[in-house]
């Protein structure tokens, strides 16, 4: 363009600028975690004991596994509310498949595997309903949660199955290097999740779907199978979490997953995974889980009534989302 004045060169301000360095969204949650931890440690002598740190980690274990699953779904820009039902079904199933007081089954590890598979199947149903029936994930997963609870209630059949399987029962109690087996399972899940996210096509495409799904389509990628696979994977994680709850309670409960849907979304979002997809990841979510757990634990240790905690968690998630979307606000923006 010969006619445009030279000073116009830097005037193409309308285009988005490239991102540089580590963003606030990536660095914020770990910093917040450290700060909050230090503050509580300074205030409360009960908080800074080794026993309490172990307690925090053990408390976080189940939530961490659920959050691993939901993170993949959120990364795609979908949402998953199915964890309560899926976890309930897996919890009852595993209680009935390992040695228990209701029947003569004693499948041990195989029983655990079957319960996880059942959960994966329920996740698969969510995914299929999404891609085949084009029902938004919000509704399909809500429905699948109800299905899961229904399946669990049928299996429950009025009598609570208490597990007598020694191995499963001791997962929650026995410790290795100071942390319970459940905590190590959670660490393992985070590691596996990170490997999937970093090195598998499934993980990379889940990330890409959240970033720009139509580009994938234009590049000749069929996204539907990947979506189904992500929901299936998430279901498997919920299943494992359900098994872990059964281990903690030594009994199968229909309500094993109650509240974990919201708690996991909170943890993921607080950790820096965007609900619109394409940002964040497993490690972000792990930090988010610790943040939420430390906060909950710390508030109790400094004497805040547990009755407050639901409300506090709600505040945190709204504030975290507001902070995350703040840079993208514009006039007359439509938010639904």
């Amino acid at each position, binding site marked *: *363009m*010969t*006619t*445009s004045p030279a000073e*116009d*060169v*830097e*005037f*193409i*301000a*309308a*285009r988005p600028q*490239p*991102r*540089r360095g580590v963003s606030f969204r990536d660095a914020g949650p770990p910093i917040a975690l450290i700060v909050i931890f230090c503050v509580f440690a300074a205030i409360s002598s009960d908080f800074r004991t080794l026993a309490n740190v172990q307690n925090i980690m053990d408390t976080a274990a189940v939530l961490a596994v659920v959050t691993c699953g939901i993170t993949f779904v959120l990364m795609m820009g979908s949402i998953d509310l199915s964890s309560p039902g899926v976890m309930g079904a897996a919890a009852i199933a595993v209680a009935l498949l390992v040695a228990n007081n209701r029947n003569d089954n004693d499948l041990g590890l195989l029983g655990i595997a079957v319960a996880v598979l059942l959960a994966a199947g329920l996740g698969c149903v969510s995914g299929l309903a999404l891609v085949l029936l084009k029902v938004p994930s919000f509704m399909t997963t809500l429905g699948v949660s109800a299905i899961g609870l229904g399946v669990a209630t049928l299996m429950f059949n009025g009598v609570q199955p208490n597990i007598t399987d020694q191995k499963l029962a001791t997962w929650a109690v026995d410790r290795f290097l100071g942390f319970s087996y459940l905590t190590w399972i959670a660490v393992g899940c985070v590691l596996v999740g990170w490997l999937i996210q*970093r*090195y*598998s*096509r*499934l993980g*990379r495409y889940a*990330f*890409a779907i*959240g*970033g*720009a799904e*139509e*580009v*994938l389509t*234009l*590049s*000749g*990628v069929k996204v539907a199978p990947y979506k189904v696979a992500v929901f299936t994977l998430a279901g498997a994680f919920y299943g494992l979490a359900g098994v872990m709850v059964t281990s903690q309670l030594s009994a199968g409960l229909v309500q094993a997953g109650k509240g974990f849907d919201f708690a996991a979304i909170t943890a993921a979002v607080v950790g820096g995974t965007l609900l619109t997809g*394409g*940002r964040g990841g497993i490690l972000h979510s792990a930090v988010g889980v610790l943040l939420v757990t430390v906060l909950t634990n710390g508030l109790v240790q400094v004497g805040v009534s547990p009755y407050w905690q639901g409300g506090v968690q709600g505040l945190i998630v709204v504030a975290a989302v507001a902070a995350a979307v703040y840079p993208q606000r514009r*006039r*007359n923006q439509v938010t639904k």
Partner: protein
Amino acid sequence: MSIELEHDISTSGPATVPALEARGLLKHYPGVKALDGVDMVVHQNEVLGLAGENGAGKSTLLKALVGLVKPDAGDIYVRGEKVRLRSVVDAANHGIGMVFQEQSLVPNLTAAENIMLGSEGRGVRGGIYRWDSMREMAQEQLDKIGSHINPLARTDTLSFADRQMVEIAKVLRIEQRSNNAPVIILDEPTSVLESKEIETLFTQVRRLREFASVIFVSHRLDEVLDVCDRVLVLRSGQSVGEVATAHAAPADLHRMMIGSTGSDDHYHGNAFKKSEEQPPPRLTVRGLSGNTFRDFDLDVHEGEIVGIVGVHGSGREDVCRALFGAEPFIAGEVTLDGKKLELSGTRSACAAGVAYVPAERKTEGMVGPMSVADNMTLTKQKSRCSGVLVVPKKQASLVDAWIERLSIRTPHRGTAIQRLSGGNQQKVVLARWLVAGDIRLLLLDHPTRGLDIGARSEVYRLMRELADSGVATVLLADSLEEAIGMSDRIVVMNDGHVTKEVACPTGAKPTPLDLVKEMV
């Protein structure tokens, strides 16, 4: 008067078969002939430019060439062989690839992943990424175009120019799919680049020509002439001529693009007359600066229609929205009838008597499933209410009166507005501002977009009537002819600021060419 420039192409007589050829492509959308029998030939190792005004059918043609649009009739030949393109993948298999106007990269993936997306080959084994192979293969692609981007950089950390290089590297992957030399389509590749980056891109295009054919689309005619061997001009869905760039000037191209339509007054009626003692202007804008416009000044008098013209990216749409408070600006002052306008939002503009008809009628102008009556009373709720309650009778009589006055053809005031024709929809959108009475400034952003000729002239008549009743109007017209025909004065914008103001009185209208000179 017809000025059909048919330069014959004597520069090259390629003996080989054309790399890509389209014959008689036809594509109709409801109410619009997007392609009306387009013929196009791309020779091997040639850079073909594609020029045409908005709506001339450029993007539909490109989409047809990469399998995104299925033409109603006509054939596409690749190297003399007739092909049917059902998808982008299909097109890629035939060696046709496109760099899209809106950059089509996944921002949160690495450059390497974007380049390989969908055809990772040995970069992914058994669903597991081999990052080393990925990087190597991507590097190979980047080396082809001589780019020094780190393949493992996240795409959203790259500059725009670099992202474009990534896209070109990605498109070149189609070489692996087809045995033919590829045909690369670049759709408005310069629109997001700075001038230095544009030079790099041009070097790249010339380099591509060594082993590929290129279709280059840009609204900047000097660029087209600079980088292309030959230019094909489209006008209302037809190919109207070809020019060898060796002997052509932007003006020639533009004459072909706009054709021979005279710039008649569309609806002169009593065109605006400057009285001897000029009253102060109704709208004054001084030094308005925002993201895409700078130091914008404008005066509009009572009863005057001022057209703002400029190419895509000139910033005129944003200026128009800023005057309605729908776009933030960083500096400048806007006064209406001597009173300073606080444009912190659209409400204050409405309250001051500013009306705005947005360009995107379907998404911004109306609420589709809502009734004509509800759409008409959307802005001024008070007009149909008594206290906080809607009074159906009040609304009905008001709406019916306007339906009759503007002769809006609708079965009933309760009909959903989306069921009306475009012209009638637009009349309802306009009526929304009229029911309130007392509009002082009317901002029209492409008010005739997508309307047929009949509907358009009705909108023109309405505009003229409003101007006669004293409304000051700012018009962003759909075409230059429309701007010239309707306006009393025309402000030309280029790259975010005013380059010229042209008086446009009845009987002494400027020609489109006069304006184009200032636009590019």
